[in-house]
C-alpha cells in the first residue's frame, strides 16, 4: 500500500525512465540526418503540432476546459509575425524588418508571447465563467469569428489571400538565414518543446498544478479550500494561448505564408484529437498523440497518396472508439485514467445509475 519499502524499485524505475528519455532525445536530435528532405518536412510538421498539442493539453487536460477554438491562438501568432514583419498590407511605423532589425524574428517571438497571453486573458475572462458545454461552444464561436474576420480584412490580413513573403528567421552574429531548409526549424521547435515541457512540469509540481487537479476533481471543494478557481483557469487558458502563438510564429516563418484556410475549426479538432488520443493531462501522451495524428498520415501519404481522403474519416472513428473503449488515451496520465473511468456526470442519465 505504501511506497515505504519500494524506494529501491522506484529509484531503478526512475533511472530507466530517465535513460529512455535521454535515448529518445538523442534519437530526435540525430534522426534528421538519416532521412529524406520530404521526411524532414514532416518532422517539422510533427514538431509544430506537438507544440500545439502540448499547449492544448494544459487547457483541456490539466484544467479540464474544453476549448474548440484553440487554433485561433495559432492564427494570431502567425498573423502577428506576418504583419509586424512588414509582409502584410498594413503600413505602420513598427511594421517592417527595418524597424525590428536583425534580431526581428526573435524579438517578435517574445512579443507574440506577450500578445497572445493578453489575448488569452481577454478571451478567457468572460468565457471561463461559463459551464463546460457552453464554454466549448463559445470558444468554437470565437475561433470562427477570428477566421472570418481574418478572411475579410483586406487591409490588415490580406483577406482570403493571406500574407505572403513572410521573412525567415535569421541568426545575426553568424549571419545564418533559416531559409526554406527544414532542419533549423526542426531544432528550434525541439528547443521550444523542451522549454515548454520544462515550464509545464514545473507548474505541474506546484500549487498551481495541484489547483488544476483540485478544480477538475471538485470545483466547489477547491474553492472552499482557498483555490482561486477562476484565476487558475485563466492561467491555463493563457498559457495554452501563448504556446499556440509561438507555434504560429514558427509556422508562418517557415512557410513564408499565412492564410485563413489553415485556421478552420477542423484544425482545432485535429489538435484536440491529438490530445485526446494521446492521453488528456499527460505530457508524453499529447506528444505521442501529435506524432500519431500528424506523423502517421503524413508518412502514409508519402507512400499511399490516395489514402489522404480517409484521414478525417479515420479520425472520426478513432475519436468515437477511444471514448468508448479507452478514454484515457495511449499514454494516460494515471490520475486522469481513474477520473475518466470511474467518475460520471450526475446530470446525464446513465445506465450505470438508473
Amino acid at each position, binding site marked *: 500500500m505504501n511506497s515505504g519499502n519500494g524506494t529501491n524499485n522506484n529509484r531503478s524505475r526512475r533511472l530507466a525512465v530517465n535513460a529512455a528519455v535521454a535515448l529518445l532525445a538523442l534519437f530526435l536530435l540525430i534522426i534528421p540526418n538519416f532521412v529524406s528532405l520530404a521526411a524532414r518536412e514532416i518532422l517539422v510538421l510533427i514538431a509544430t503540432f506537438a507544440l500545439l498539442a502540448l499547449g492544448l493539453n494544459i487547457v483541456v487536460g490539466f484544467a479540464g476546459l474544453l476549448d474548440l477554438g484553440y487554433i485561433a491562438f495559432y492564427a494570431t501568432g502567425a498573423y502577428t509575425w506576418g504583419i509586424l514583419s512588414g509582409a502584410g498590407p498594413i503600413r505602420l511605423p513598427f511594421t517592417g524588418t527595418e524597424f525590428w532589425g536583425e534580431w526581428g524574428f526573435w524579438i517578435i517571438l517574445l512579443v507574440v508571447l506577450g500578445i497572445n497571453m493578453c489575448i488569452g486573458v481577454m478571451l478567457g475572462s468572460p468565457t471561463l465563467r461559463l459551464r463546460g*458545454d457552453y464554454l466549448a461552444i463559445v470558444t468554437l464561436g470565437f475561433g470562427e*469569428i477570428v477566421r472570418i474576420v481574418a478572411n475579410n480584412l483586406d487591409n490588415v490580413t490580406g483577406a482570403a489571400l493571406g500574407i505572403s513573403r513572410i521573412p525567415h528567421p535569421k541568426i545575426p552574429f553568424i549571419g545564418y538565414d533559416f531559409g526554406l531548409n527544414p532542419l533549423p526549424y526542426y531544432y528550434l521547435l525541439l528547443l521550444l518543446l523542451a522549454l515548454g515541457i520544462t515550464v509545464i512540469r514545473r507548474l505541474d509540481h506546484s500549487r498551481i498544478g495541484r489547483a488544476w487537479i483540485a478544480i477538475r476533481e471538485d470545483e466547489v471543494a477547491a474553492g472552499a479550500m482557498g483555490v482561486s478557481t477562476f484565476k487558475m483557469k485563466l492561467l491555463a487558458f493563457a498559457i495554452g494561448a501563448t504556446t499556440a502563438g509561438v507555434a504560429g510564429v514558427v509556422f508562418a516563418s517557415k512557410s513564408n505564408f499565412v492564410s485563413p484556410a489553415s485556421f478552420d475549426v477542423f484544425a482545432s479538432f485535429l489538435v484536440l484529437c491529438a490530445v485526446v488520443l494521446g492521453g488528456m493531462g499527460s505530457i508524453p501522451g499529447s506528444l505521442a498523440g501529435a506524432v500519431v495524428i500528424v506523423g502517421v498520415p503524413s508518412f502514409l501519404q508519402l507512400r499511399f497518396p490516395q489514402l489522404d481522403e480517409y484521414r478525417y474519416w479515420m479520425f472520426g*472513428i478513432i*475519436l468515437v472508439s477511444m471514448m468508448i473503449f479507452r478514454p484515457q488515451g495511449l499514454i494516460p496520465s494515471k490520475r486522469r485514467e481513474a477520473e475518466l473511468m470511474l467518475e460520471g*456526470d450526475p446530470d446525464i442519465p*446513465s445506465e450505470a445509475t438508473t
Partner: protein
Amino acid sequence: MPDCLSSELPFRLAGGLSTGAVYAMIALGYTLVYGVLQLINFAHSEVFMLGTLGAFLTVGALVPDGGVTSQTQGAMILLAAAVPAVILGGLAAVALERVAYRPLRRRGAPRLAYLISAIGASLFLSNSVRIWRGPNFETLPRTVRSRIVLDLGDTFFTGILPESMQRVRIQNRDILVFVVAMLAMVAVDQFINRSRIGRGIRAVAQDAETAGLMGVNINKVITVTFLIGGLLAGAAGLLFAWSFGVTRFQIGFLPGIKAFTAAVLGGIGNIRGALLGGLLLGVFENVAAGCFGVQWRDVVAFLILVLVLFFRPTGLLGDKEAT
C-alpha cells in the same frame, strides 16, 4: 436610413423567415436532445446533411433524363423525395445515439467524452459522404420553378403602400418552406405536450432519475427524442435542398452551428424557443447580409452565439437558472 433596413427590409424579412424556419427545424433536434441528455449533439449537423443527401439522391433518380416536363411532375418528385430524406434523418439520428452515445451512458462517462465522441461521429459521417460523393458541390436538378406570388407593387393596396415597399416580391417557395416548417414544428410541439411519450420526454428532461423511478423507460424516451430530432432534420434537409439547390459533404456544418445558436438564443431545452430563435436568427442574418455584405453573413450567427452565452445564457424563453 440605409436601404437594407428600409426598402429591402420586407424582402429580407421574407427570405429570413424562410431560412429561419429551416434553422428552427434543425434547432429543435439540438434543443430536444439537450433537454433530455444535457448534451450538445454535435453530430446533428450531419443528420441534416444526410437529409439533403437523401433528397438529392431521390430527385436525381426520379427526374427523367430530359428534365422535368411539368410543374406537377416536379412537385410530385419533390414530395417523393421527402420520404427518404425524413426517414434517412430519423435512422441516422437513432443510429448515432446507439453507436456514439449509449455506450458512454452505460459507462457513466463524463461530459467531455460525449462531446468528443460527437465530434468523432460528425467527422465520420461527413467524411463518409465525402469519400462516397467527392468533395465538390452537387446541384439539384430543376424540379419546381419557384415563382413570385406576391408582388406588392401589383396588389389592391398598391396605392397606399410606400414607394419602397412596392418593390417587394415574395416567392412561393419561401412561403411554402415557411409553412411546411411551421406545420412540422406545431406537430412536434403538440406531440410533446399531449402524447404519453411526449410526457415521458418532458419528465426525463426535468429529472431523469425520478422519471426512471416512476416507470418511464429512459432508453426508449431517449431514442424517441433522437428520432424526432432526426426526422425534423431530414425534413429540413429536403427544404434546404429545394431552397438552395446544392449539397456537399460539409453542408451541415454552418447550418448546424447556426441552428444550435438559434436553440441557445431561444433558450436551450425550450421547444418554442427553438422556433423563435431560428426565425430571429434567419432574419438577423439576412438583414445583416444586406447591410454589411454577404461575406459577413456567417459572423452574425457566431456573434449572436457568443453574446447570448455571455449575457443571457438561458436564452430568450429560458428561465434564469443559477449556474
